[in-house]
């Protein structure tokens, strides 16, 4: 009986420790450097719905440091358009992403933002100017009007995801456990106004 009691107590302490660790982890995550989707909307122009979003990136010191030391950072603006259904899960009508790479060029002392989708690159002499480019997406053609049923409700889901898996290898284990590398936003939902 004593041994059983001890093992129970040990189990309780062990699980409490895990719980506290996860709690502190999630708190730091919540307080930390995750990006925000400030605004997202779809507007109909011609026969296409165009996406416009306004994003805010929070770069932690470590992320800035890494960027400054030549580490390229990758961001995905993930977009999903879902048809709302009452009793079953929502149906994803379209899913796409815009992938940005931001990199510092030491020779030219400038920041270069590249849209990985179309290969367009932009050079900025300041970091804030580079971020501004990534923060604003305007008139990104998302879906044809014909694919949107007029009698259905739709939700626009937007998320900014920081891709840790393309970080240099030695940085990856740290990026998985260090809240300073938790830079992604949560999914945000926006109604589609037809």
């Amino acid at each position, binding site marked *: 009986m004593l041994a059983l009691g001890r093992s129970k107590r040990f189990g309780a302490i062990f699980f409490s420790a895990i719980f506290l660790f996860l709690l502190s982890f999630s708190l730091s995550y919540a307080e930390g450097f995750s990006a925000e989707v400030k605004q997202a909307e779809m507007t109909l122009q011609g026969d296409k719905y165009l996406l416009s979003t306004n994003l805010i990136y929070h770069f932690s010191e470590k992320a800035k440091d890494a960027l400054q*030391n030549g580490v390229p950072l990758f961001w995905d603006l993930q977009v999903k358009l879902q048809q709302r259904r009452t009793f079953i899960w929502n149906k994803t009508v379209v899913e796409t992403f815009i992938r940005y790479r931001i990199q510092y060029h030491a020779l030219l002392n400038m920041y270069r933002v590249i849209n990985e989708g179309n290969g367009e690159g932009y050079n900025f002499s300041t970091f804030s100017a580079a971020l501004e480019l990534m923060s604003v997406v305007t008139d990104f053609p998302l879906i044809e009007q014909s694919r949107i049923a007029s009698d259905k409700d739709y939700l626009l889901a937007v998320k900014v995801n920081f891709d840790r898996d393309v970080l240099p290898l*030695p940085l990856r284990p740290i990026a*998985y456990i260090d809240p300073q590398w938790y830079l992604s936003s949560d999914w945000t939902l926006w109604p589609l106004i037809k």
Partner: protein
Amino acid sequence: MAPDKIAPPVNLYVLILFGLILLSLQLMSSAMQESSELSAMYSWLLLFNALGSAVLLILVGANIYSLIQHTKRREAGSRLTTRMVSLFVVLALAPAVIVFYFSMQFLHQGIDSWFNVEIDRAMEDALELSQASLDQRMHWHLKQTQQLTGKLEDLSENQVASEIESLREFSGASEMTVFSRQGHIIASSSINPGDILPSLPDEHIWLQVRQNGLFVAVAPVHQEELMVRVIVTVKAQDSQFLQALYPVPVRIADLADSVEFAFVRYQEMNFLRDSLKMSFSLALSLVLLMSLLAAIWVAFISVRNIIAPVKDLVKGTQAVASGYYDQQLPVIAQDDLGFLVESFNDMTQRIAQARDETRKAGFEVENQRAYLETILANLTAGVISFDAQYKIRTANQAAYRIFHVHVNQFIGRTLLELVQRYSELAEPLKSIQRLVEQADDIWQQRIAFLGPNGRQELLCRGTPLFSQEGFRVGAVVVFDDVTDLIQAQKNAAWGEVARRLAHEIKNPLTPIQLSAERLQHKLADKLGSSDATILQRSTQTIVQQVEAMKEMVDDFSEYAKPSKKQTVDIDLPRLIKEVLALYAVKSGVKFNADYGSGLLVINGDPVSIRQVLHNLIKNALEAIGALGVIELSLRRVIKNNTDFIEIALYDDGPGIKDEQIEKIFEPYVTTKAKGTGLGLAIVKKIIEEHGGAIWIDTTRKVGAGFIIQLPAYNSK
């Protein structure tokens, strides 16, 4: 019993697990190479290995916990297992930790050695050199462009459009564009005629242009081609801007790229130095941890397999020590331990056989003993055995029946100790003890004594017991109560005498009497008066004596014949009252009678019982004379689990002399001048024929006392 195959100490699953661990570690090692395709899986591999370590840790933890529990319970083999596992762990841990420590040292020093101040400075200088080279180029192009603006001043827009081509070609620019103040394109020329749209400056550039009036920078333009962009103000009526894009020579661009690439790589590596160290340390620690945990776990399994036969042996030995000899252990391997286990099995088999045989022999001896005890217990003769110190060793049931003493409660004591408690048995017990101690051979002796129930006679036979070596180890005495047998012999002898007397003496008496009366009758008239008187006196004497002889013979007949004729239930108090009523008239004699309580009934012949009472009362009356007291009491007693009714009769006469006490109940023994001497003999005969006993109460010192015990009749 023995298995054919020798089992390996580590089974297949453990080998597979080891294989997986090695594979995972190898994959992780490969993934750490930057160029490896496994690089993308690095995180997963790390996680998998961490999980593997956790699983191994749990396994080892469970094993340690189980071992601690076993050790606490002091289970067989647990301490040996602890010792061996500890040894394994220490042997595995010590070199691993040493290798780990030095590996970490080398790793950290190795990584640090990649970076030093000189390389750092060289890298920065190289970059600065590249930048200086480009700067110089930029300044040169800026100056060149500013000089070109002079040619555009005061030209109309159309003139500008026609002039710009030649200016571009003159300056060596790849593209030249004139913008209006608002940023609209006025004219443009490109080395590549296909480029319809010139490279447009972004808002930041415009901002600088508007602020400074000029802009110069090196930046990649069109397919990452490095260009020097120069924008200067053209002093015209309406301000215009001239943008010229000068290509950086390929060689310089390549060199600058190369320097930048090297610098960036170096910077990146420098930045990642700590992460790299941590990453390598993590991988190395994981390898060490997994290897150690796996080794410990395998150590547990191996030690358990090795210890298993020892554990079985310990358990088996404990079981044998506790008396369970049927222990057969499985022979797991044909090694030294297997040989030990086989030997143990042989040993327990033999012990079990020996135990079975001993048990069988013991059982037989016990049976024999029980058989002998049963015979002894059911013998009518009493048997007492003695040890070498002549102390009682065993006594059978018959000994109790004869002595009325539980002899078997005095085992370990001598008969003399019994005498101290039962003084009435002093005579026979002392005699037996003496004979047992003195006799060297078989002896036989008849011992008579006055027991609680009167005179008893024992026929004792004894023999000393000797060991095989000839030492005296004890003795055994067999004795039988022959009182009744001797009495019966005496009665039979007296009965024969009586029958002979009746037959041989009584028959001639009648002719003698008749002859004497006839002599008297025939000769009385013929003789003189004096002779006639003598004749008459003589014949009268003959007739009287013949009558007396007849009476004597009749008494003998009476004594010889059986008295228990018709048996009925006799209420003793009532019978005694009736008998005493006959003597009540005699004055001077007082009868004190106590008739007891309850129902006092016997089964017998009332005439005979009356005769007993009459004989005893007559004797008492004759003994006390004219004045005296006769006491008579009745009570129920229990003896040998049988109900008896005891009649005690006491007088206050002169009593019976000690020398007469033993023979008072024999015929022709009397203290009176008158009487045949058959009275008490007849009394004793009647009582014994009724299953009772009569004896003289020797404890009473005044007068004579007779105690009669007759079996009570309990009607149910």
